[in-house]
């Protein structure tokens, strides 16, 4: 045993974030804390680092035996100094470690230590990366850089907070392999995650948390395969496979994209980032756009909604061409194509009650009377499971899942023909995600339901769609029914993507 947490309770303003949590950490093993967001995973992980929320009342004990604890936070950019180049902290740490050497040998020794840590963290082309600023690195590079810092520290324990959240299947697989390699070096990993596939692939020991308490704990195979607690069972339930839309409902061509080339401005030049020959969406249908980050999924969605206007080609709705920019679209056209953003919190004004913001859509786009709009907003919100006083609050007091429902309600008030859902389940825990997707399915099974463009990197989320279009490097490489794409992919990229997602479990472990 290398560290232990005994009866840890962390209270802020009389509310227990973590309630009597105990766990033991042994070298070379992966201990996973799983649970919904807000269940106390991160607070427990930070406690191991000796960090507690401001003003917290802490009881219980955290002991770490003769080693240091490294940290790979959910957003690695948060621990990288924006004004210093990527290698600054690594160099300072190495310099601390070689202080005992004679002066003449320090520099070479420090450089050697940094190089070894970078190699261990599988950071390719490290020499060049170290002279860049953190914001010039990709998310994956930032994560590996932070891991290299923990390895250079000589940490015996590494706390990895949601390392795979928001990552596509191929990246997730790489991260899983990397963490397995870390554990293989005898380092203990405390994995905080709600991605159960990752937990299944990595963990030796699993603790299931809910509301700050550990509701179940034990060896991974027992907790994951034979859960005793009802909450664990709910968390572990299979993702939805029932189709979102009634496949018989799909009708005529509703939205068509033809000969589209979209560009982004990069340092003065306009670089093409997406080109689509032809893509159609039929009424009542759910079309999933899948691909890795940067593949052009979101740009395509933004083109449809008129949010990205630097493109050529035609986008037609019911046979009439849609203007490229939002500003040139009529009210009816604006109402017809609605967009639900990935970051629901950023998509609401934090100073006004959610209900007012949802109702505003009906006033703006459907010309409804304010009072009638509020009544309608209430009806739709109640429909989506947001009832009573909750919607009178400001967005800050709603959870991520609740806000995403409110965002969906806001789009529905426009009575749209098409809703573009951009990664709406990204960062939500399995239970919340499943209920949001069930809601989407319930919406789509109604009469006159809007067609849905579902942008996602998660194949489990894409599976219940009617059709799937796979994007890679700004092009649609394959398109077909979801059964065909997921079970019999033809394009090599789709094969790799599906393979990475399906074989996660088998790919790793020593």
């Amino acid at each position, binding site marked *: 045993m290398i560290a232990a947490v005994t009866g840890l309770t962390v209270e802020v303003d009389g509310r227990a974030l973590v309630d009597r949590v105990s766990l033991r950490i042994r070298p070379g093993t992966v201990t996973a804390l799983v649970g919904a967001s807000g269940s106390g995973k991160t607070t427990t992980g930070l406690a191991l*680092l000796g960090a507690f929320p401001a003003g917290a009342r802490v009881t219980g004990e955290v002991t770490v035996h003769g080693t240091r604890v490294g*940290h790979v*936070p959910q957003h690695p950019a948060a621990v990288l100094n924006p*004004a210093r180049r990527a290698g600054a902290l690594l160099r300072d740490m190495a310099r*601390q470690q070689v202080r005992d050497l004679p002066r003449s040998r320090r520099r070479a020794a420090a450089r050697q230590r940094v190089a070894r840590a970078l190699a261990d963290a599988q950071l390719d082309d490290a020499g060049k990366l170290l002279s860049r600023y953190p*914001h010039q690195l990709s998310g994956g590079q930032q994560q590996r850089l932070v891991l290299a810092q923990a390895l250079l*520290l000589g940490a015996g324990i590494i706390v990895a907070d949601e390392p795979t959240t928001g990552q596509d299947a191929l990246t997730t697989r790489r991260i899983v392999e990397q963490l397995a390699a870390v554990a293989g070096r005898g380092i203990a990993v405390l994995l905080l995650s709600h991605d159960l596939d990752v937990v299944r692939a990595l963990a030796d020991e699993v603790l299931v948390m809910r509301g700050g308490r550990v509701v179940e704990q034990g060896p991974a195979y027992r907790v994951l395969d034979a859960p005793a607690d009802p909450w664990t069972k709910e968390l572990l339930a299979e993702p939805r496979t029932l189709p979102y839309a009634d496949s018989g409902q799909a009708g005529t061509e509703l939205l068509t994209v033809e000969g589209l080339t979209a560009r982004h401005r990069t340092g003065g030049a306009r670089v093409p980032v997406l080109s689509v020959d032809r893509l159609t969406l039929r009424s009542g249908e759910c079309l999933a756009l899948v691909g890795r980050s940067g593949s052009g999924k979101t740009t395509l969605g933004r083109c449809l909604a008129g949010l990205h206007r630097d493109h050529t080609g035609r986008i037609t709705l019911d046979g009439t061409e849609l203007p490229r920019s939002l500003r040139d679209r009529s009210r009816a056209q604006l109402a017809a194509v609605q967009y639900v953003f990935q970051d629901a919190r950023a998509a609401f004004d934090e100073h006004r009650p959610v209900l007012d913001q949802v109702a505003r859509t009906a006033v703006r786009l459907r010309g409804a009377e304010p009072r009638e709009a509020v009544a309608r907003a209430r009806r739709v919100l109640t429909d989506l499971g947001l009832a009573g006083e909750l919607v009178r609050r400001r967005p800050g007091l709603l959870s991520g899942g609740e806000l995403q429902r409110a965002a969906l309600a806001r789009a529905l008030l426009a009575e749209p023909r098409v809703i573009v859902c951009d990664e709406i389940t990204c960062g939500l825990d399995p239970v919340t995600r499943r209920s949001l997707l069930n809601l989407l399915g319930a919406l789509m099974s109604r009469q006159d339901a809007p067609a849905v463009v579902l942008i996602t990197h998660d194949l489990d989320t894409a599976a219940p769609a009617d059709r799937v279009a796979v994007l890679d490097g700004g092009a649609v490489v394959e398109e077909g029914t979801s059964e065909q794409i997921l079970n019999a992919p033809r394009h090599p990229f789709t094969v790799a993507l599906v393979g990475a997602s399906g074989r996660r479990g088998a790919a790793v472990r020593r």
Partner: protein
Amino acid sequence: MNALRSWIARRLLLGVLQTAAVVLLVFGLTEALPGDAAVAFAGDQPDPQRIAAVREAMGLDRPAHERLTDWVVGLLHGDFGTSLTSGRPVAGFLADGFGPTLLLATLTVLILVPVSVGLGVLAARHEGRLTDRLISSATLGVYAVPEFALGVLLVSVLALRLGWLPPTAVGYGTDLLAHPAALVLPVLVLLARPVCSLARLVRAGMIDALAAPWTAHARRYGIPGARIRYGHALPNALAPATQQLARTIDWLLCGVIVVEALYVIPGLGTVLMNAVADRDIPVVQGLAVVFGVATVLLNLGADLVTHRLAPRSGAAA
């Protein structure tokens, strides 16, 4: 890198246009003032005939646009023209005045930067505690005192009453470095307010930087406190202070008229005052060019440093 270079080029071009606009404005305004160099020269005997003769001798009877054109053509060849009142080349005037001004500015900046950064870091380190409260209230208090008031106060206490320092630089000419005692009071007055504003900016930036997650991360990974403060946190805190420093240096180079007048230092401020009083338009215009160029270059430099310290902000123009 290429984008940065073209940004610098655009900024410089814009700077040239701005300087030209300043020169035109200064020319127009001095033309609009009642009286001219001939009237000022005639002094106590405003005999119209004499004034007309002087005006003709100075070339002031020619139309304004002609005089301006001549001056601009000369400037393009590096010739600042000649002073109306003394007949000396303007460049010589400027060079004479520039020495003392540059000396004062350099001394002030050399003391200003370490003192204000040190005070700001010290206050941020003890945020909310006695040290911080002392530094914060002292800087706020001193900042509220105008230069002329502080200057008069220092002269009357340190020079006249205690007799420790010479009250002014009268009689020392332009070679002030040979008489360091005469520089103490002016530099003190010049330092007073900039130290306060810079220290407060550094303090605010340091408090943010020390509370950032990456600071906690570095601390957890065993980096010593001083290294975190000066090596990791300070670069983040310096971006706003850099802009303020550029404005301060600009002020030191272009307009410490009050301090120069108070301590009788023959710097650019004195040259400017005399030239305006004599309506010596070529000298005023020469000063406008120098001040304009200094302002443009200092702000460009500050923006480049800010870009280095806050690389995410990108180059704004």
